[in-house]
């Protein structure tokens, strides 16, 4: 029997309480009785719908562009690959506000790459900001899975006459399917909670760019009860994400 350093339990307990107590505070102050009424408020429902739509769109864009990017990083070798990889992961560590400012000077009205379609301070801008911040979650998850999945199945597919595209679609992607799903859930959760980049790049216009986190923050000043209600919705969404990942993440190999 090895001796265990039981004194570690004390700081561990402090850490656990520190993480859980704010949630208890939130639940304790929740106006449970008035909750249906508060959530039925058209302004809240608008913010909720906008949040879900934008987060879903950001997840879709991340899948569309992030999975190929993950494949490039995992499977192709080219000079500067490590630098590219570091740059892709930058939004993970970048303060979201900085991301928002950067987006503004890149894609804003007077930005370097200003398009004919206005992005800043529009719903599309919300999606852009959320994608910018959340896509790296998908890229690193899928890249990790691709890097560790070996090439033996892809070789077998090639000898059966599968083109590179068929192999990618029918072998590579299904094999990393659970990781793609886990990455998508993470991306969705990150996009749903996005605050800094969104408010900087897209602003805080109710009905157009005011997502749930923004609405929660604003409501805290004027109507604390509805702020708590909105926070509960976001908390519920986060718990759902945890549940979804528990199912998906721990069961590799089988998809479709």
């Amino acid at each position, binding site marked *: 029997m090895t001796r265990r350093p039981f004194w570690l339990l004390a700081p561990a307990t402090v850490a656990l309480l520190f993480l859980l107590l704010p949630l208890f505070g939130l639940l304790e102050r929740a106006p449970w009785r008035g909750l249906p009424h508060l959530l039925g408020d058209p302004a809240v429902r608008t913010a909720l719908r906008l949040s879900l739509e934008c987060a879903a769109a950001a997840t879709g864009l991340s899948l569309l562009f992030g999975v190929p990017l993950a494949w490039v990083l995992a499977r192709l070798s080219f000079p500067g690959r490590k630098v590219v990889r570091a740059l892709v992961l930058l939004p993970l560590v970048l303060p979201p506000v900085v991301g928002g400012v950067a987006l503004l000077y890149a894609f804003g009205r007077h930005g370097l790459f200003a398009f004919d379609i206005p992005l800043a301070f529009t719903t599309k801008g919300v999606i852009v900001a959320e994608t910018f911040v959340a896509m790296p979650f998908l890229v690193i998850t899928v890249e990790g899975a691709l890097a560790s999945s070996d090439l033996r*199945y892809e070789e077998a597919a090639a*000898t059966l*006459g*599968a083109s590179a595209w068929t192999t990618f679609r029918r072998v590579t992607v299904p094999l990393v399917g659970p990781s793609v799903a886990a990455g998508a859930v993470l991306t969705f959760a990150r996009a749903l909670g996005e605050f800094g980049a969104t408010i900087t790049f897209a602003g805080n216009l109710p009905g157009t760019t005011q997502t749930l986190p923004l609405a929660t923050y604003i409501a805290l000043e004027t109507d604390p009860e509805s702020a708590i209600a909105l926070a509960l919705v976001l908390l519920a969404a986060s718990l759902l994400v945890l549940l979804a990942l528990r199912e998906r993440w721990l069961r590799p*190999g089988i998809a479709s």
Partner: protein
Amino acid sequence: MSLSASVALRRGAFSLDVGLAAADGEVVAVLGPNGAGKSTLLRALAGLQPMTGEVLVAGRDVTGLSPQRRRIGVVFQDHRLFPHLSALENVAFGLRCDGSRPAAARAAAAPWFPRLGLDGLESRRPGQLSGGQAQRVAVARALAVAPDLLLLDEPLSALDVEVRGEVRQVLRAALTAFGGPALLVTHDPLEALTLADRLVVLEAGRVVQAGTPAEVTRRPATAYVARLVGRNLWRGTLHDGVLAVDSGGEIRCSTGAFEGPALVSARPSSVALFLERPAGSSLRNLWPGTVTGVEVLGEHARVSIDGGPPVVAEITAAAVADLRLGAGDRVWAGLKASEVEAWPHS
């Protein structure tokens, strides 16, 4: 000739330089020790390994083509069935790549299951199949697209010994029905002798011997082949019916049919063992030596003896027990000249 290939490649200190041919319906086994380049050769033919040279399959030059366009089927040692597809979908995979609709591909894949004794396993995932079943599905998957050439990379070596024989029989029937040329890479002589029409022995990236199983078994060209087929082999110079063995000692042969460099071979069962020098023996080859190993295989035992020309004697396991033979024991080895076969070797 439906396969005709010359393959050359270099990987670090290892180099491979091999010419190969196989006719339609012919099964050629590529035998060799580990590291001889067998699997590398097979991967090069399939297009999975860069090489120089030429690969002609069914009269088509596929040298510059990607694996996808070669029409060469491969059965890998580790079946490599797609884990996310059912057995049936695995067999249908190649047909779908050929452009068949999903339903048509599955319909064409279905008859392979009874053919290979896989009835009722169509909807299983690879993870739910035994090793032998999975390898049979892999054979079906490779054959379903009717490739111009079939390559098998140690198809039985990953299987348990109990199921190996059963899968070997199924494989034999499938290869007979296939009709195209097939190349079987193996280091198991039993696999090669039971499945192949012709053997090609590869050592250190070069072909050291090629021929029918009977030819190779009777006249092994190298020590590896001799050990593989269980024969004694000595290399040396024959003069006046006596072989001066390169590594020392001499072997008397029955006739002095030719002179010069020669290979001389004898079956282990024709070597007699004695604890003392036999008196008044007519044996023309008789030399003392030391037992270096005893290997019991069922009712028989193989005794390796060093001291004179290295030799393996096969005696009954009962005789080993009677003589109390063990490593380090001094014995006399005897061999009749009439049991020795000699042939010229350049």
